């Protein structure tokens, strides 16, 4: 880059960071204001969207940053929720302990499954994550005595002050914001950069001394942990955990959201989650063929808009950088 472009970029960067700040402020106000009107369906859907956003963002550490397409993220989501629910129901564990145990259990499961899955290339990774997740699904579904099978696991609830939807919304907002910040720091850390390097060229990363498998395994565990947090939030919010949380469709939806929002952009998945949730609520009022609809949407996005909504993210970037990038 020559000096002139650099100058432009610096000026542009200041303007862009100002824009980012405005957008962040506007989004914060919007999020804080959602329960103000007391409209219950909005509060409930907003809470669900927060949980979904965290699930998808944790998956994006693998997909967007690590280049690993996990088809089994639902397994960790479900493990988090079921662990907390089972502890609360059968052992009468205090809320905070159960809340912490869920993500830990998910991380442990991720450590075991991940150790087998990161040994090989893309195609094997996809098949193995899908297969192991289906195993988790089958165990939850068939082990009726423990998990309630397809009736779901019910009979536990959060402390009384969290029974109010508005309060739970703010609780979820706080937890999800903290997790998003943690994931942001992880993505921007040297570890996150290393993951990106592995994604772009695993051979080169190996040459410069990166232990590729170990980094991928660590990413898999971290992603599993945060999916577990989302699972616990879901379990306590609905005061129950249901077997479809572990189903293939939950994992597939998360990937669809990544495609919609754009996976190479930190906030892409968050925007994707909002768009997906709005579609998911509004389309079934028009037609019962939701899977057909979302299938056609996937095909259209994959063929004609491969960057997803991330394209519009360029608004937040300095113009000179965008222009530079287009030229390159």
């Amino acid at each position, binding site marked *: 880059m020559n000096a002139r472009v650099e100058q432009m970029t610096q000026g542009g960067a200041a303007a862009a960071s100002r824009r980012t700040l405005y957008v962040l402020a506007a989004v914060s106000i919007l999020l804080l204001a959602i329960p103000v009107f007391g409209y219950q369906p909005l509060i409930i859907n907003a809470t669900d969207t927060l949980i979904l956003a965290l699930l998808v963002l944790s998956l994006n550490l693998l997909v967007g940053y690590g280049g690993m397409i996990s088809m089994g993220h639902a397994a960790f989501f479900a493990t988090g929720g079921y662990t907390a629910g089972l502890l609360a129901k059968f052992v009468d564990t205090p809320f905070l302990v159960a809340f912490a145990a869920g993500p830990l259990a998910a991380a442990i499961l991720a450590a075991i499954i991940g150790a087998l899955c990161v040994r090989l290339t893309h195609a094997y990774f996809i098949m193995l994550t899908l297969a192991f997740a289906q195993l988790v699904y089958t165990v939850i579904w068939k082990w009726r005595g423990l998990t309630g099978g397809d009736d779901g696991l019910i009979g536990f609830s959060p402390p009384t002050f969290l029974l109010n939807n508005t309060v739970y919304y703010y609780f979820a907002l706080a937890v999800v914001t903290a997790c998003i910040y943690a994931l942001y720091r992880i993505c921007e850390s040297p570890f996150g950069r290393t993951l990106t390097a592995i994604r772009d060229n695993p051979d080169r990363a190996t040459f410069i001394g990166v232990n590729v498998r170990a980094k991928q395994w660590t990413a898999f565990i971290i992603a599993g942990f945060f999916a577990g947090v989302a699972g616990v939030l879901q379990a306590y919010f609905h005061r129950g955990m249901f077997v479809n949380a572990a189903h293939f469709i939950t994992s597939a939806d998360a990937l669809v959201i990544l*495609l919609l929002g754009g996976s190479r952009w930190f906030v892409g998945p968050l925007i994707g989650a909002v768009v997906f949730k709005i579609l998911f609520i509004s389309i079934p009022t028009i037609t019962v063929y939701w899977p057909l609809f979302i299938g056609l949407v996937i095909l259209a996005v994959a063929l004609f808009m491969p960057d997803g909504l991330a394209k519009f993210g360029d608004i937040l970037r300095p113009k000179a950088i965008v222009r530079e990038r287009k030229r390159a």
Partner: protein
Amino acid sequence: MIELQLISGLVSAAILFLLASGLSLIFGVCHVLNLAHGAFFLLATFLAYMVTSQLAVTEFDFWIALILVPLAVAGVGAVAEITLFRRLYGANILLQVLPTIALIFIISDLVRFFWGLEPLAVPTPTGFNFPIELFGVFFPSYYAVVVVAGALVALLIWFLVYKTDWGLLIRAVSQDRDMARALGVKANRIFTSVFALGTGLAGVGGVLFAPIGGANLGTDMDAVIEAFAVVVVGGLGSVWGSAVAALLIGMLKAFGILIVPQFALAFVFGLMAIVLVIRPTGLFGARE
């Protein structure tokens, strides 16, 4: 008792082989991991129901279905390759995987639209609804049809891939598609025909499976997961690996049911984990 498990193990091995060899071929040549492979299998079971129920007056309803349905499924596969997958070769892997998920959604939803949610029974072909005796046990004679058909298709694939000009081109394209193109091979035609062959094999599997398991929404995921297990154990891209692994897994499933009926699949996953630790690329897969 053991003989009966042996025979039902062979039956599931035949169907697993049909599924996994198609999946393996498509991956080996087109480098697309077709998650919708089970959806093509599902489509075939319902088409088998449609053909056999329409032609129930004739004696040959099942055999007509066994010819027509795989052709129809192969046609769907070819159309999917031409309109969809061809545009995504070389794109990032998320963009290649998601359309196959989209196909799962679209196919299963269309099946629900045409045939509803209820499981449908497909009759055993006329002339094969009696039991036969072998080694002192009785088993449905239809099982023999499935095993023989599986073996014949395995021979046919071997012949196509190793003894015909077309097979030579397939092997050339799968080894080095750019070099093959440079030498004048019309690679696009090869891709389309391999997609059609692979999905057609899933179609044969679906038709053969229909009289045993019926036509059921939900078989798509079961089928693709078991095909994955076979491919992981046998090695991705190796048709022989698929054959050996299908036999191993078919037997494991059949005998696993005797020990823990609820979790027979656990044995399959156990085998998969052991193979992955000892020989990550599968029993017959090329080393990386």
